[in-house]
């Protein structure tokens, strides 16, 4: 348990500190940073690095890929893999995490596996997954599933373990059964942890996806970049990178929004 605690690194603590609403000034600074970045990029492309496409070239390429539908197809293929793997992983992780946190027996039985697989980067599973599961959709989804499962399970477990004992006692003295305590105290109290775990899980799922698609895929953002690499098509690689970044950011923001909605009862310091 101590080891898991160290690995879990109290997810609530990470989100506990959140600044006030971002000021106009901060947004303006962000914009300035983006403009400067684009300028440097243009400069490097025009005078510096050989073969590096400038922002305009990349934008043109993006337009092309959008127009012929490639970008949409690839994005949907990638998103589908991530969402299926992520949802399955999270759906399994939450009950397993609760079991581990609530029953010492379940913890004892499951912890060695969770511990062990956590130390293996999900990408390292890819060769095994391909050999065992073939080169279709299954191994890719499986690896994503594993990545999101492992990060969610640990934070859910941690959330259950960290539920304030006095809250459980307060429910018990009011006559709550174990079942009620679980549903009405443990579940809500660990929600912040679960949501943080989901965010970490989604991040690691997204990261795993691209690598999974670099190997044996027919469509997807990772596959498209791999193809482009064969033809020295740097613009397409850039479009792929930007698409991955933007989608990752969007999904993260969405979860963050959900998290704030669901856990706005938390005292933040």
């Amino acid at each position, binding site marked *: 348990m101590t080891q898991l605690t160290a690995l879990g690194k109290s997810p609530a603590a990470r989100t506990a500190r959140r600044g006030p609403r971002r000021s106009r000034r901060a947004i303006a600074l962000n914009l300035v940073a983006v403009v400067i970045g684009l300028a440097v990029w243009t400069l490097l492309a025009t005078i510096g690095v050989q073969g590096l496409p400038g922002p305009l070239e990349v934008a043109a390429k993006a337009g092309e890929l959008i127009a012929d539908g490639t970008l949409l197809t690839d994005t949907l293929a990638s998103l589908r893999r991530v969402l299926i793997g992520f949802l399955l992983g999270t759906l399994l992780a939450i009950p397993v995490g609760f079991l581990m946190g609530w029953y010492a027996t379940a913890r004892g039985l499951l912890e060695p596996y969770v511990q062990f697989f956590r130390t293996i980067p999900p990408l390292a599973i890819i060769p095994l997954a391909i050999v065992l599961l073939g080169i279709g959709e299954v191994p890719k989804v499986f690896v994503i599933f594993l990545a999101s499962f492992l990060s969610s399970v640990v934070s859910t477990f941690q959330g259950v373990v960290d539920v304030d004992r006095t809250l459980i006692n307060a429910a018990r003295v009011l*006559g709550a059964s174990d079942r009620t305590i679980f549903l009405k105290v443990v579940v809500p109290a660990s929600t912040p942890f679960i949501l943080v775990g989901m965010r970490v899980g989604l991040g690691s799922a997204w990261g795993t996806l691209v690598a999974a698609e670099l190997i044996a895929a027919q469509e997807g953002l990772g596959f498209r970049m791999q193809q482009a690499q064969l033809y020295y098509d740097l613009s397409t690689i850039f479009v792929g990178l930007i698409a991955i970044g933007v989608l990752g950011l969007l999904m993260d923001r969405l979860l963050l929004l959900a998290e704030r909605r669901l856990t706005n009862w938390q005292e933040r310091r």
Partner: protein
Amino acid sequence: MNAKISFRDVVKTYPMKEGTFTALDHVSLDIADREFVTVVGPSGCGKSTLLSMAAGLVEPTSGAVLVDGAPVGGPGPDRGVIFQQYALFPWLSVRKNVEFGLRLMNLPAEERRRRAGRAIELVGLADFADALPKTLSGGMKQRCAIARAYAVDPQVLLMDEPFGALDALTRVQLQDQLLDTWSQEQRTVMFITHDVDEAVYLARRVIVMAARPGRLHKVIDVDLPYPRTEEMRLSPEFGRIRNEVWHAVYHQAPAVPAA
């Protein structure tokens, strides 16, 4: 005899790195049905531990804790507890917190709302019924915890420094309210406090404890009639008892070294 709560030769030890730590050392105490006792003593003398045993949250290492003559098997809604650390559910509004115990009693919604409303009214939180605990001050949180315990109307109230975070005025108001409801509904109350005045004002008996090891030091009777009044606080008799309690708490003989 009809003790509501009785502690029989209760010992509580906690294992330490080396040996054990004795939190309570052979405590025997009977609290009569419908009695109001207060418990005072230096920090760490085992007041909360004693109360938690009556609540059924902590088991004695040896000895027995009986409620209505039967050994305490666990917590139950017949004994309401107000915790030193408020223990409000932070995701529930004040009203939902207060309704928590009422929901478990499967009361009809209307009755539930009525009783919760009355308890919230009693502690003066009516304007904050829909507020989340994070928006309340320490004293308001404490009042919410009090309302939550009052709402289920338990036979026994176990209160762990319930008025500790309150301002002087609210504190006096809630003391009088507590005495009112206690005399009307004839509950048994075990009330921990650090405030000697409060201990004397509320109780029929003040239990003074000593630390290291935690044990009973002295039991002081308060021979003042109920209802207690503001004038009584200024009476010589009140002053005499307060001095006695004060002396017992703050001028304790050095502890016998633990065996």
